[in-house]
């Protein structure tokens, strides 16, 4: 597609449940990023993929968070045993290379009740 697509746009889940958030980047963009944005804050880095591999996962807050990109295109962010503090907007972005800036999706708003 022409832009970065994220699904679902909104997700409400119960505390303790497992969720998956999907990101479909711009075709040909090798770099893919996940960010988390809490209310009133700037986006915070979670993980960066270069191709299929996670080049930097230092932003993942704990081992309940995991992300994959098995074919170097679509990525899935997985959150186990969700907690209310995980509620935020999860943004995905892709980039064709260093210094070009990122193209962001519209995000998934996750609400844990």
């Amino acid at each position: 597609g022409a832009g970065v697509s994220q699904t679902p746009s909104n997700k409400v889940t119960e505390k303790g449940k497992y969720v998956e958030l999907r990101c479909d980047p711009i075709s040909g963009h090798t770099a893919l990023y996940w960010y988390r944005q809490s209310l009133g804050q700037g986006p915070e880095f979670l993980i960066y993929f270069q191709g299929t591999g996670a080049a930097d996962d230092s932003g993942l807050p704990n081992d309940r968070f995991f992300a994959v990109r098995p074919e170097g295109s679509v990525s899935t962010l997985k959150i186990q045993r969700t907690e209310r503090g995980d509620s935020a907007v999860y943004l995905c972005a892709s980039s064709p290379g260093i210094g070009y800036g990122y193209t962001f999706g519209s995000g998934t708003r996750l609400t844990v009740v």
Partner: protein
Amino acid sequence: AQTVTQSQPEMSVQEAETVTLSCTYDTSENNYYLFWYKQPPSRQMILVIRQEAYKQQNATENRFSVNFQKAAKSFSLKISDSQLGDTAMYFCAFFSVAGANNLFFGTGTRLTVIP
């Protein structure tokens, strides 16, 4: 570690007037990029303008321009002829070429354009 500071949580401007949003950053690196992103209520982050640190000339994109002061580590955004559609959150962001390969964002400035 890099830090990006946006000291103006909220600003407002009359339609057709000019407004400047401030951003300062801290880094020990010499090769980096700086960006301004706009985030309207739709949530999508939209790239407004980018600046390479090795370029002295300030970047310009139509009504948007920056004042990049490398020695002072300052990167302000000027919006000329403000339009109602400029109402949004604006985030300043830093990208290190040699360091962590990800954008580091400030906390944002909420801009309201008043008709």
